[in-house]
């Protein structure tokens, strides 16, 4: 446990720079987005009302009030989120391959630590999780802040105010990374964790058996995904809706846990018996 925590800390320190850069980009880009979108609207209102002498009520009827959802839907806002997702996706692979890269192959050191090699695997998995949750937490923190900036830029009569929750509810894309209920949060990210564990096992297949390992890894991933969705397939094609939805959910959770467990076990075996530096 202690070496696991040490390893998590170590892995986390290795990624903090990338993490901080992505947080910085997100914050700056989203703030610019708020300012750009709000400004555009205020300018348009100014032009219509003060130059074209359109009555205010007429303007509001024609163009509508602006709300924060419009800001969120802009590329300034969604772009950095996509970038962070891409960053995590990239790092899922890089977290392993960086240890094999270059002359100073750090994997020697990691594999020679007097602790279970499984801890290396778990520490890397935890780091991906921390990174993901870190982005989510950061987005949840800056959303209200951005909302405040937005409110300070647009006069009250021209805007429709939403809280963080309403904004998320109105933008389904955002709801994918910040689900509306805690149950879904655990289900989504649990499935994500399982997916990462499958990819990790695939990477370790590749690292253990090289070219043959790519085929083995892809094969493993296919079997794992199939195992995970097998309750759904059974329900639709064999059982003809025999299971109640809640039972199907429980079976899915069970299938997910099994796949996660098998992926961890497989990775442990590969790290212990088959890995090559």
């Amino acid at each position: 446990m202690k070496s696991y925590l040490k390893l998590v800390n170590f892995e986390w320190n290795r990624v903090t720079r990338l993490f901080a850069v992505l947080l910085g980009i997100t914050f700056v880009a989203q703030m610019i987005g708020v300012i750009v979108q709000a400004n555009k609207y205020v300018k348009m209102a100014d032009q219509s009302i003060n130059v074209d002498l359109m009555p205010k009520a007429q303007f509001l009827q024609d163009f509508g009030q602006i709300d924060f959802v419009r800001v969120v839907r802009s590329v300034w806002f969604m772009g950095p989120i996509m970038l962070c997702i891409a960053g995590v996706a990239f790092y899922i692979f890089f977290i392993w391959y960086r240890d094999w890269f270059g002359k100073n192959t750090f994997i020697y050191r990691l594999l020679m630590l007097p602790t279970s090699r499984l801890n290396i695997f778990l520490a890397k998995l935890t780091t991906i999780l921390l990174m993901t949750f870190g982005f989510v937490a950061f987005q949840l923190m800056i959303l209200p802040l951005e909302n405040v900036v937005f409110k300070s830029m647009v006069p009250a009569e021209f805007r429709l105010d939403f809280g963080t929750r309403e904004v998320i509810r109105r933008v389904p894309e955002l709801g994918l990374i910040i689900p509306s209920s805690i149950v879904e949060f655990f289900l989504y990210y649990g499935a994500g964790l399982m997916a990462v564990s499958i990819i990790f096992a695939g990477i370790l297949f590749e690292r253990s058996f090289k070219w043959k390992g790519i085929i083995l890894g892809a094969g493993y991933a296919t079997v794992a995904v199939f195992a995970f969705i097998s309750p759904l397939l059974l329900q639709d094609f064999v059982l003809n809706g025999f299971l109640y939805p809640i039972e199907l959910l429980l079976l899915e959770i069970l299938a997910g846990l099994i796949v996660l467990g098998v992926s961890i076990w497989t990775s442990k075996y590969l790290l212990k018996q088959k890995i090559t530096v």
Partner: protein
Amino acid sequence: MKKYWKMTVTIIVIIVSIGSFYLTNKVAADQNPDVTIETTSGDMAEIKSLVLDGSFFDSSSKSSTQVKITAEGTNRNNNSFLNRLIGNPPTVIKDLRQKNRNFMRGKDPIENLFFENDQFLAYANVSYQTSGSLQSYNYQFDISILNKEESKTDSFKLQVPNQTMVEHVLMEDVQIIGGELKLITQNMTRDNGVNNTEQHVYTVDIASQQISGDEAVLKLPEDQGDTQMNAQLIQTSPLQDDENLIFMVTESSIKKDLESTRFESVQKEMVTYNLLTKETTSIELPEDIQTTDNQASFYDGEMIYFVKTEGGKLIVTSLNQESGKEDTSFEIELPYKLKDQNPPLMTIDNGKVYVATRSMNQNQKAFVVAVDTQTGKLLYSGELAVTSAEEMEEYVLYLYELSVK
């Protein structure tokens, strides 16, 4: 410990930020509004077995909540993931699922496909597969019968007879009467290039699991020009023995005006079929029932009721099924105004007709009334009221089911 500061800070931020988001989320969900029925006249006991199912939509937060409104108050079912997953089947189905969890597995949640009496719980549906060429389907009855005494379930499939003629089969009702299972279907058939719609009653021998009878109760000709024939089975509760099937046969013609094309009924006829004697009887309907659309019909095994609302009036006509004679008819002024094009929710149970509006919002109230079907006396009237912890600017309450427990 200094070494761990980055990780420590990250974990704390994650827990606090995400944790507080979902914690306040839960608080917000608990502040959903209550919907109550407030009596304006009569005794609330009159509606004590009435259940209104609906969904409450708060426009400002865009959140919707499933509500079950009874005389006692609201039962909320928020729009959480699990509730969405479980779904919201009709009350009858919910009760059946609660009592017969295993029997109800994989069965379509449609009331008419079920029948229940003291001895049996039965289900039947039509299934089909494409086999080879596109036109030929293999139509089958999927039947499950639960014998309550032996708590034994028999499930079997039976071929629909005359496959070659069948274009489509629709299960309309299931009955068990005289120890036999009766499947009431609407069949679209094609015979020598002529399309027909037929109402069939298939008799299934429960012991041998064979089809022992096939009666075509009604045969409606193909649409001709502007006229169209259509037969509708007046549904009863699945929890009720019905010796008689009642079909409303409507002949309607196409009315075209500038804006739309619609069907208007020209003639209505009622046909009853006795499941035991296999006799078919025609009943002539009173003039005013013949010519009106937009009315609901109910059958309680003895009386057939026609209920409609017109200009704020509730008009109820009842016929005795056996004699085919008009029994009682009355009009009663409702204490509320209604729009004719949007008929309210109505049901008849145990000598009472219940009426409820389909929706309410901040400007328009919804009401519930109960009227005695014999005397036409207003037994109860009440308004729905929304009480909420927070001030709500805009909301809509949709009611979609009115049932009696």
